[in-house]
Structure formats: C-alpha cells, structure tokens
C-alpha cells in the first residue's frame, strides 16, 4: 500500500536533487565545492542521487587553506576517488606565493585569504557555477540568500539586489564573467544533515566523533593544539575527550567536550544542544555582520 507521502528528509532530498539537475541543465562549466565536511558529504550523496548511473557531470573543487585538519583532507581525497570524480585543490599558500592573496601584516588566519584563492580558481577553470553546502540556518546573512545566488564579475553578493526566486523556477542566466553560487542544502538544518547522514549511512571524518585531543583555552573556547599557533607557556592546555561540531580551520574550530561515538549519539546531542553550530566558530563571532561582509567580498 503506497501512501504518496514524503517525510521531511525526503522533501529536502527531492528539492536538492532538483536543484542539482537544474545546475547540470543550465550551466556550461559547474563545479561542486567539496571540503570533506558533513554538509558537502551530503551534497555528494545528492549528486549521486541526481546523476547516477552516469558520472557526476562536474569536478569537485576545494580551497585548501593549509590549516585544514589532516583527517579532513585525507577523507576528501579518498571520497573523491571512490566516486570517480575529478578533485581540484587550490591552495591559499600558492595564491600567496603568486601574489593573488595578500596577507595583512601579522595575519595568521587564512579565512579571508580563501576568497581571492577561490575567485582565482573560478577564473582559471572558467567555472560559471559553484555548488556549495551552505545552509540558511547557519547564520543570519545566509538566511537571506537565495538557492541560486548571483555573483557579479568581482564575485560579490549584493543582498539588496537578489533575483526573486519563485516556485522552483531558478534563473541561471549569466553574462560573461558573472558567476552563480548554488546552495541545494539551503533549507536543511544541522539536525537534518545528521539525520540524512544516518539514513544514508554516510561516512564522515573521524574528528566528528569523540576522541582524545590536546586542547588550548582561547577566547572562551577549547581549540586544538597545533603547530600553527603553538600554546604559550601561560595558556591552559589540557587533554580532553572532544569532537568537532563544525569544521573550519584548525586554529579557529572550537572543540566540544562530547562522548558521542556514533551518528545516533550526535543526533541525541544536537537535540539537547543549547548553542548553535556556529557558536563554536571563532571566525563568525568577530562581528555581527562578519558573514555578510565576507559574502559581499566573494566568500562561499
């Protein structure tokens, strides 16, 4: 007996598959941004659902800041290979060496420098569309962004001048040099992502699960101890049982103390959580409009 009823994950899935196929149908040279993080892991499964049994008709692109968790890059490379996809990695380090990205004096974070690196990769491969895993529930500026987010020839997002997006009719028309960022997971929440990972039995990098790690207390958070910004003698360093809830660069990703060793544990933990996912990302806390400003400059 068929009930002709979709549950909420099936709804989100069919919406996202439709968007992926619109990208394949409307753009000449799309790319899929794949970092190895949980959101882009879902994107890859959705790409499989959209395009199999054919090959996924777009390469995977990752901007490597040089400050990635090694577990993440290992996973990224292996997963791309398993799917038979072409993985393009462009490094912030190379962009700095070529003068494409210019660090400010004393600037350690690679967050801002990802932007020119990404824009240079888009130019190099003449990508007209990049699919990303951003979600509207992550942040207030993202909450206002369309599925098809138009970027001008400087890669800039203009929040006041977005194309109206009506029904499921996406306007993907571009003039030369312009670019579209497309976010199939716009309507997904953190909980939806983990429930989908559970339903689809998707692998995720080990750092999402509980492990023992040396952590240093900075800015009210526990950050992983790394060689990039080594702990100073007066800093509080401890060995803790932690996991990451959202993965950014190793110098800015807050660790949460957690015993969660399975996806089900993580889902239970999120259901009881009292802070948002991005509450553990130092890069978003710098100002109320931090994300809006980065997006206007060409961020994902």
């Amino acid at each position, binding site marked *: 007996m068929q009930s002709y009823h979709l549950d909420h994950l099936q709804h989100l899935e069919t919406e996202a598959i439709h968007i992926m196929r619109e990208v394949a149908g409307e753009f000449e040279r799309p790319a899929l941004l794949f970092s190895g993080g949980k959101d882009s892991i879902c994107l890859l499964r959705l790409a499989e659902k959209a395009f199999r049994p054919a090959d996924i008709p777009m390469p995977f692109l990752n901007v490597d800041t040089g400050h990635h968790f090694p577990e993440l890059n290992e996973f990224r490379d292996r997963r791309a290979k398993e799917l038979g996809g072409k993985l393009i990695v462009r490094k912030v380090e190379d962009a700095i060496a070529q003068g494409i990205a210019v660090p400010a004096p004393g600037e350690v974070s690679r967050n801002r420098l990802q932007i020119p690196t990404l824009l240079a990769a888009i130019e190099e491969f003449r990508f007209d569309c990049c699919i990303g895993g951003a979600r509207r529930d992550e942040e207030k500026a993202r909450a*206002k962004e369309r599925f098809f987010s138009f970027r001008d020839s400087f890669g800039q997002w203009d929040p*006041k001048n977005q194309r109206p997006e009506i029904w499921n009719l996406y306007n993907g028309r571009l003039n030369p040099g312009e670019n579209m960022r497309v976010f199939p997971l716009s309507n997904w929440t953190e909980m939806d992502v983990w429930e989908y990972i559970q339903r689809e*039995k998707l692998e995720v990098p080990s750092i999402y699960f509980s492990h023992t790690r040396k952590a240093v207390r900075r800015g009210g958070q526990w950050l992983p101890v790394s060689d990039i910004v080594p702990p100073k003698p007066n800093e509080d360093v401890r060995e803790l049982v932690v996991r990451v809830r959202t993965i950014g660069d190793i110098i800015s990703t807050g660790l949460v103390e957690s015993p969660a060793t399975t996806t089900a544990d993580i889902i239970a933990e999120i259901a009881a959580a009292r802070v948002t996912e991005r509450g553990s990302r130092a890069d978003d806390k710098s100002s109320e409009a931090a994300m809006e400003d980065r997006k206007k400059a060409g961020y994902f």
Partner: protein
Amino acid sequence: MSVSQPTELRQTNSEAPRPALPVDILRFNTCGSVDDGKSTLIGRLLYDSKSLMEDQIEALERSADITGGGQINLANLTDGLRAEREQGITIDVAYRYFATPRRKFIIADTPGHVQYTRNMVTGASTANLSIVLVDARLGVIEQSRRHTAIASLLRIPHLVVAVNKMDLVGWSEQRFLEIRAQFEEFLPRLDIKDVKFIPLSALNGDNVVDPSPHTPWYSGPTLLGHLETVHIASDWNLQGFRLPVQWVNRPNNPKNPELHDFRGFSGQIAGGIVRTGQKVIALPAGIVTTVKQIWTYDGPVQEAFCPQSVTVVLEHDVDVSRGSMLIGPDHLPGASNELHAEVCWMHPRGLQAGRKYFLKHTTHTVQAVVTELVHKLNVSTLETEAAPAELNVNDIGEIKLRTSKPIVFDGYGINRLTGSFILIEQGTNATVAAGMLMPPREVVKSEHGDYVI
C-alpha cells in the same frame, strides 16, 4: 597533536535508536505592513517553542545593550543584514527553521513595504500557509488587502489572519470581531479555501505558543497549535502525471554493457503518479511510449509520485531532451504558444505591450513577446482597470503572450508547478515577473498521428 582514536573512518551505526522524525514539513510565510510585528512574531514562535539557542539569545542581549536601550528585540533574530538592523526594517526574505515533535517548519519572513511585494511573492510561492498580520488598533488596511490578494493569487491553500497587538486594544472581543468582519467583506471575492482568525500579542506571547489568559472568549487553537495540525497532505497535485525533463542521463559507459545503452530522463515529478509499464506521451514530439523502468539511486521502483525526483527509462528511443515533458494519458495538459496569464510585475522597468523576454516554464526557456495588457488589478478595491498602458513594479495584472515555441502547461489553479513561469529581461537577466497561467482552452490531442505503440 594526540588523537587516541585510530583515524580510520567509521560507518554510522544504523542499529542505534533514533528520535522520532517530524512527520512532514509545513512551509509558511508571514506578511503584514511595516510595524505589524512580523519579525517579533517569528522571534516569539522560536523563543517560546524553545527553538533558540543560548548564543542566539546572548547575541540578542548584546545588540539590545547597543541599540535597544537594554530591551531584547526579537525582530533582531531575523533581521540579519547590516542595513536592516540600522534602519530597523526587513529588506529581504529571511528563512527560519524550527521543529516540534509534530512537524518541521520553514518560515519565510517577507517584508511588508509596498516596494517589496516581489519578496512576498518570492517567500509565498512555495508556502502551504500564509500568515497575514493585522494591527488590532488599525484593523484592515490596504497592505492587508494586498497581501491577502497575493496569497489568493498564488493559490496558497491556507490563510491565518493573526490579529496582533490585542493587548493594546484591551483584549476586546468586539474589536476582534470587527476586524474579522472587515476581512469577510472581501474574502468572498478571493480564492482562499481555508481561513483562520487568531487574536494574539506577539510581544507578550499570548496565543502564539501558549494559550492566553486574556482571551476567554476565544476557543480556537494558538498559532503554533494551528500550524502543527493544519491538514496539508492534499496540497500536492496527484492527478495527471507530469515529468518536465531536466537532464538526459546517458552514462556512455563502454565498460559496463548494461549501462552502455542506458538512456534515462531525469526530473522532478510535477504532478501525478507514474508506474512501470504505463503508457506515457512525450511532448512536444507527441509520441506515445511505455515506461520501461523508473530508475532511482536506491534501486528501481514500481511507481513514483509528485514531487519525487526520478529517472525514467522509456521503451522506445524517442526525441526527448531538457525542456520536454512526459505526461500520462489522463488529465491532458494544454500545448500552445499563445498564453494567457496573471503576472506580478517585479522590476522598476515597467511592462508594456510589445516587449520581449525569456520565459522560463518548468525546465524550458523560450522567447516570449507580450502581446496585450488585458487589465490591471487594483488590490485595494479588487477592481480591474482594462487595457492599462503599463504594469509597474508590484502591479498585478492579466496579460497575453506569444512564445517562440509551444509550451506544455496546466492552469495554475490545477497545478502550481506546470502552471507557473517567470519572465527574464534580456540583457540584464533580471527576473522581472512571476506568471500564473490560465487553464488551456484546449488540451493536447491524444490521438496524435505519430504514435509508436
């Protein structure tokens, strides 16, 4: 760094018990005029349903100290852009998400200023339900009529009139009934099936999540109670199979003989149900063939329904590509290059007869020329003005168009997905109009000459 756990990757544990999933999704939008308290209402829904996190509340408190003189402003939860916080207005559609054990909700907070009607159309086009906010002190104003008219035009199945700021009229039942009567005066002229009136105070939380002690005369549900229980299962069209083809799936895999000749048509079902072995018509070719397989990543299925995404393999090699539509033999659509539609104009450059645009309908983009402006709707009086010279931004009107190729369509009242289109300005590529098609005057003929059976 020390990582005690081996770095190999783990399969997720599927045996573990998982929390009960919400049964379905309700999409709704909120509309009202500038100070009706839309954002406050959404903030209140999130706050009282315990969907807010500590860091969000902290951020609210931080901005309260800076801009609000110490008062927490729930509107700051949704007004995310710099200019909005500075000017205290909502510029664009903001999407919010929350869930209760019964349902998951997607909220589109759409601004009320007259110049932002296009955003309301954007936010409301996918909604199951619209909340129109009315300030109890002001009663029905032009904006209330405009928003209700747009909700009706977009055929949003359910409407909630939230009579807000009831605390400021002393929780007067008489005032509530007056406003209800004002609405009921013009509702019969609109096409809305289900309307609910709820007296509330977003600021204080009365009748939003928790029932109010101030409205003993009101026996209906709270706003959240209504949102959790309103019946939406029949909002999708399950009559008349429609599959607009998005993408032709051709693996061209010489190594795998099974895939070597695979040719599937991928798309999201826009109406009805399809079954393996059934007859379908491929349009515009007009060829009848049979469904050989319904392919999905999770394995072939015997049947699939709207709005699932599938890949259909046909018995015969027919001419089908992106923009084609597969349809079932019952409930036939129209196919024409002469179209008649209601449009909401969304661009500062007005519409005049004779202008050319791109028209995107389902997965098909064609050129279109506007041949006639039939009338313009006055949304305050719901009267029409015949043969206007121009449709300006935020105007709603009826137009006729001619397209460079016929499109296969249904009336918007029958099917929102195959009865809608957008117009795109050539050159700037701006989306300038949302269009809703009138029912076809004649349907495609099923006894077309070129049948392959």
